């Protein structure tokens, strides 16, 4: 198929960006979206132009590096996948596709489609861990039984890949789904209880400091999340925060 691409180009974080049109031809429907981008970039390199910079790495939907906003949707027009898992069969011959970076005040553009997600790092550093040193003599892994239900629910929260689609999708640029998932993982496990109150307070404080917006329960984040992280995690985080503040 033949396509027109409208792509955000921006030289660096200080430059003013703009949408630029490109044409690609003979795109196979079996290609992944990023392989289509590879074709475009090969074309640009051969023409002596600078290729489009975009983040990507594992190309199997788990590293969380890829981050495109395609036709107005984070990770494009399919559900439960990242950009690297999107395939060209979702598009038709002659389509015009708009490709932008994930946009949020807390995710400044570095170049073209590459954004800076260090805000997520700082939130995790504020408390996204259990304070245990490596020693080789922590207690036996089976010493504390954990109900299968709690373990499974903690796993569902822990499956977040930290891509930032929730933020890019949210009209308030809220990071609550991301933070809620991490808070929930530890809140559901006995190992996480000791530091639970400080953890949620510190992580939420850092989230606010980074300039993410608040949650107004539109649920768009859950719809666009490639890993199907549930809104329940936001509710749990709010409960944990309230509990921490009144106790």
């Amino acid at each position, binding site marked *: 198929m033949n396509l027109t691409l409208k792509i955000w180009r921006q030289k660096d974080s200080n430059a003013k960006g703009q949408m630029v049109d490109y044409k690609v031809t003979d795109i196979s429907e079996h290609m992944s979206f990023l392989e289509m981008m590879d074709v475009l970039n090969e074309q640009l390199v051969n023409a002596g132009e600078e290729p489009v910079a975009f983040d990507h*790495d594992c190309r199997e939907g788990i*590293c969380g590096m890829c981050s495109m906003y395609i036709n107005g949707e984070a990770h494009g027009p399919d559900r439960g996948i990242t950009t690297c898992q999107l*395939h060209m069969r979702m598009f038709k011959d002659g389509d015009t596709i708009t490709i932008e970076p994930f946009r949020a005040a807390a995710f400044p553009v570095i170049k073209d489609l590459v954004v800076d997600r260090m805000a997520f790092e700082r939130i*995790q550093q504020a408390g996204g861990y259990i304070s245990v040193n*490596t020693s*080789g003599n*922590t207690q036996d*892994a089976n010493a504390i039984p954990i109900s299968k239900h709690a*373990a499974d629910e903690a796993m569902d929260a822990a499956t977040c890949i930290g891509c930032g689609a929730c933020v890019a999708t949210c009209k308030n640029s809220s990071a609550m789904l991301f933070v809620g998932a991490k808070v929930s993982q530890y809140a559901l496990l006995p190992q996480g209880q000791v530091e639970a109150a400080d953890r949620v307070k510190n992580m939420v404080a850092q989230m606010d400091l980074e300039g993410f917006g608040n949650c107004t329960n539109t649920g768009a984040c859950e719809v666009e999340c490639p890993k199907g992280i549930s809104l329940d995690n936001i509710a749990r985080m709010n409960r944990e925060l309230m509990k921490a503040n009144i106790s």
Partner: protein
Amino acid sequence: MALNSKVPKGPIKDKWTDYKNHIDLVNPANKRHIDVIVVGTGLAGGSAAATLAELGYNVKAFAYQDSPRRAHSIAAQGGINAAKNYQGDGDSTYRLFYDTVKGGDYRSREANVHRLAEVSANIIDQCVAQGVPFARDYGGLLDNRSFGGVLVSRTFYAKGQTGQQLLLGAYSAMNRQIARGKIEMFNRHEMLDVVKVDGKARGIIARNLITGEIERHSAHAVVIATGGYGNVYFLSTNAMGSNATAAWKIHKKGAYFANPCYTQIHPTCIPRSGDYQSKLTLMSESLRNDGRIWVPKKIEDAQAIQQGKLKPTDLAEEDRDYYLERRYPAFGNLVPRDVASRAAKERCDAGFGVNATGEAVYLDFAAAIERYGKEQAKIQNIDNPSGGKIYELGQAIVEAKYGNLFQMYEKIVDENPYETPMMIYPATHYTMGGVWVDYNLMTTVEGLYCIGEANFSDHGANRLGASALMQGLADGYFVLPYTIGDYLSNDIRTGKIPTDTKEFDDAEKEVKDRINFFTNNKGTKSVDHFHKRLGKVMWDKVGMARNEKGLKEAMAEIKAIREEFWKEVKVPGSANEMNPELEKAGRVADFLELGELFAKDALVREESCGGHFREESVELDGPQKGEAKRNDEDFAFVSAWEYKGEPADAVLHKEELEFNDIELKQRSYK
């Protein structure tokens, strides 16, 4: 220089304990004055950085991604082995040690593997303490599954995302130390050279991938944890950015490179669909528990399928060749990875492949669906169930077991694997070879360490499933923190290593010269153009089956591609900005050298062992006729290569392997 593995004396089960009891320690106050650089933040690098910082060292960690959490350890699916014996099925440290040495086709170092088995149980305890949500059974205790090549259930898992959860555990431990200021984290940075002062590794030169700035970083010791070199094949299951540059740069500065020809080709990957393909996707080995692998029996049926004129479901049972069940009746579809991969290649080379490229075989779940369906009908007391009912019941069971994998397959291939057999083909997955290290995990350069997949030490010629995660975390959490302390105890009075010295000047100049060459070269071909050509030579001649003629051709062809690369490569953009093409150019330049050494190593090793199959070395008769033939008399050694300029001029050093605790046997799966 003669190789000294520095394996401690004494019985194998006491070596590690005795070693730990007798090494020199650094007191906590002195650790504050010692700096360690860790390059790479996957399971090995991440766990090492966190543990060293907890101990009190000043750690500088480097990752080319925008966060340590994105390292490719994250993509590991199946699980992590540990000799916990929670299932009471006879597992023990010795059994894990034995399985790993045997699985590696007797080409690993016994003492290292035994240590790995010893610390394996600690890893699970540590990860649970960190909040890693491993799968549990209804009683709340940890669940286990079984993997290929072993007779016990010792694999711990977190759904199909075990690597992700273990890496997030190490990442959280890192975050705690980053917050304390004990780890200084350099995201989006790439190491481009190591700096040696008086023969010791004392720092690195790194490029800031956002600004293009070249930076100098000093330390008392340098740890390389940058993973494997599978992307030398261009197409692999590795991440797009996975590269061998750090390992190759230290090789050029004196670190020997061991067994580059030991590469694991994983049998169950989604086949290539066209020339635009950028990477290959693995489907978990667990699928072979229920899937049956076949190709058409008649060549005309295979051709009709390749041309799209015939569907697999049209073929009658007697027209199908279940070649693994035919050749290996004892293990059937569950033969080890190397055997399954070679058998698929053999059928496809003979013309029986089942997609347009002729490079695919079927993995069929129809029999499993029927078997489970009948079983369910019995359980639910349904008399004389219809075919449709059996299918419905069976499909539900298969979906519960493999649903996420089937969905992943359908997203990529656009076919429903419940209705039509999956197509699979082998792909490069893991590299057992790597930088040579001694028992301390130190390379042949003093103060320069190498851990995880980047080193060569534990998996011999073939790695068992669920052992990569185990090795990465064992090295980082439990081995390196001891061994590096013994070395650093000599550095308590050294003081900060200055970076304004001639050694740093020279290393930085070398790095800058190379970058300037790339951005100024008036070439005509893209970096990927050369990478794809290298990958094709590697796959065709240094892939699943190798022979003398092909390997010699490969060496000459890779050399020719390399020479053309240095004339014709074209890199747009400048050095002082984010420039992904420039990053790729440096990595491919190194792969073009590594690939030739890889072929040379495969040429020298005139035996078949594990992932390395030489067509000249097969059993000529008897029940094992046509199978791989190992030669312990002449080749029970580690090949450690010393850099001498051109890869073809590399000098071979041999570390003889001694097997005192395990008897050498031929692997048989018939």
